[in-house]
Structures are given as C-alpha cells and as structure tokens.
C-alpha cells in the first residue's frame, strides 16, 4: 500500500506546508499533462519508501492557480520541496526515479 499523499489547494496550502514537521515535496500537476502522469507512480513509490522522512503532496494547478502563480510555476510537472515552510529545492520537468532520488537526497 502506498502512503497517503495529501491533496493541497489554494485554501489549505499555507496551513499544510507551515504545520508540517517533515519536509514536504509538492507535485504541481494537471490532468492534461502527460509527463505529470509519468511522474505520479514514481512519487507514489517514494511516498511509501520515505514515509516518516518526507511527505508527498499534490497540487492541481488548474484548480489552484494562486499557489502556482505565487511560486512562479511555468512548467509542469514542477516538484518543490518545502522545509520548515520554505522552498528548499525545485525540480522542473519529469525525471526518472533514480535522478529524482538524487535530487531530493538531502531531505530523506
């Protein structure tokens, strides 16, 4: 079973990110984005494997344009790692699992 992946929205984003004791990787995605669909199953796996160390959350940019705009997201998938409520790393574009794990190594 995969660990729970939170669904964020414009309304809940600040609260969820601000209150998290673990780093949170937010997946900015949309239904129409092919590469986002390739990344989703990898994030499911990472969520399970890194449970307790790193949380994974998703934000649909179609439904939540405010947060996407606030963080200057201009290409999806964009993955942003938030630590203590602040942006700590950003990965733009779909990547394979090996490369993703390398780029988030500092947080797991």
């Amino acid at each position: 079973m995969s660990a729970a992946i939170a669904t964020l929205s414009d309304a809940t984003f600040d609260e969820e990110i601000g209150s998290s004791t673990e780093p949170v990787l937010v997946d900015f995605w949309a239904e129409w984005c092919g590469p986002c669909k390739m990344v989703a199953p990898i994030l499911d796996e990472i969520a399970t494997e890194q449970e307790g160390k790193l949380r994974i959350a998703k934000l649909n940019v179609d439904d939540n344009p405010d947060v996407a705009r606030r963080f200057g997201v201009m290409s999806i998938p964009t993955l942003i790692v938030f630590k203590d409520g602040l942006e700590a790393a950003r990965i733009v574009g779909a990547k394979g699992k090996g490369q993703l794990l390398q780029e988030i190594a500092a947080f797991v």
Partner: protein
Amino acid sequence: MSATSATDIRNVIIIGSGPAGLTSAIYTARANLAPLVIEGEPSSTSDQPGGQLMLTTEVENFPGFPEGIMGPELMVRFREQAVRFGAEVLTQKVSRVDLSGRPFGVWIGDPDAAEPTYKANAVIVSTGAQSLMLGIDAEKRLLGHGLSTCATCDGFFFRDQDIAVVGGGDSALEEAIFLTKFARTVTLVHRRDQLRASKIMQERAFANDKLRFLWNHVVDDVLGDTTVERVRVRNVETDELSDLEVSGLFVAIGHRPNTELFKGQLEMEDTGYLVTQNGTHTNVEGVFACGDVQDHTYRQAITAAGSGCMAAIDCERWLEHAEV
C-alpha cells in the same frame, strides 16, 4: 522473474515504448516470445516512456477513434494491450548495447559494468526521435522558465500573454493553435516564407485570428535573466536583428533520432536515422528497427505502429530460422 541475472537471455528485447515499440511488443507477445520492453524513463525534454505522443493533446488522425483521443491516453492503451499478452515492461533506460555478437548485450545503469544486464537473441530498436533544441546558451537557463518544448505541458501558464512558437511543420502549427487557447497572441517564427505543415493544419492556422506569422526569420537568442522577456530574431534575407516582446517561446523546429546508443554498431544515415532494408532489418542480423528512429519521412503514430508490426513479424521469422 529474474530481472538482474547476467545469464538471463531473452528472446526479444524491445528498446523504446512509443507506438512502434509497443506494437512490436503486442505482436511478439502474441507470438509467445515473451518480449521485454525497456521503455525508458520519464522526461519532459528528451525521450520518454510512451514516446512523443505523451507530449501531445488530442490525436485526431489515429484510425479507430472517430472522436479523437488524447495522446497519453492512447499510449496507456497501447501499453495495456502489450502487457495483457505477456510483455514485460521495465521503466528504465538502456545505457549501452553490444550488438557485435549473439546473444546481444543490453546494459541498464552503469554502462561500464563488465556484464550486460540482459542478453537477447534479437533486439527491436524503437527509440524514436526527440525535439531538436535551438542550441543557444539561454536554453539551459530559461528552459522551464518561459522557454519550452512542450506546449501541452506549459501552455496553460501563458494565459493572456504574448508568446512565440518557432518552427513551420505540423507540430509547430499544432502547438501554436493549441497555445491560442491560452495566450493573447501567438507569433509563429519560421525561417521560410511558407509552411511545411499539412493543408488542414495550415487552413486552421490561417483562420486563427490570434496567430501571427513572422516569415523568413530565425531565433537568434532568448533574452531574460530568470524568465523569458524577449526573443531576438534575425531576418534570414537581410540579417537584420529585431526583438519580439514575448514572455514565452515554444520550440518546434523538428526532431532528431535517438540513436546515440547505436553509433558505430548500426548503419545510420548522416542525420543519424537508422538504415533498414527488406522491411525492418538493420545491417546487424537479429536487430530490427521500427518507428521514427528509422523514418524521417512519415513520422506518424500509425506508420510507427505499422512498422512496429513489421519488425515483430520480421523478428519472429528470423528467430525461427536463426540458430540461436
């Protein structure tokens, strides 16, 4: 299923998972060859599992879908059909091949490893093609920050903005028309004074009042520190430079085949496309090629799928007669 044993010899390994690779997987699986498809790894900028259709929206010309179908959805269906008949799919990237003797060697991960990850009696190459980039310094800095090769991924973020597309073929027009759904204006920069695109796409483009055309121009540079601010274009007739005030540039200037892996091992044209003969045979017996990696003429999902079927049949016949 042993996935890592170096002695693991497969009947058929298929490298690539677009319409060509997955069609060859469906056919070889139904021929009880238990194909292993090494589909690649996700990427927004180079090759990716599912192939180029993963970066498109509506596919209107694939027979059997009178209402059209989304590219990624179509590829999910191809894959499910291959898996249904017993194809094994691996979401990893091939790092090296050795086609100098049979069984052939296929490496995943460390290309310098002494032993290949897999061996195969036959290999079907369907690695496809990927978008050409402009080859300018700004590309590294601005990719994903206003510079894009994927309209369907990024177009949404340019709502009510002025943007540009560079290119003149079907994919350029498709991207430009798609982008007019979001953008205020889309300027198509093309190096000639007419389009290469199909008639139906041209008619749609000329009828679209948000689309403008800048003929006889090429992109010289993209300006902006952290995000695209202007695109510098050059008139190919006068060499005159001018700037387009746009916040986004989408690149659709053509494709190059993904044949790095096979350099020095498979015969290819100067442009890198694999050479096939008698159907889908390459110059190495037991290695077959299908889809865009060997086709710079048609480059359609349906022709790729057709040649994938041919490669599977060629491969099956060859395996029957070869002493492997």
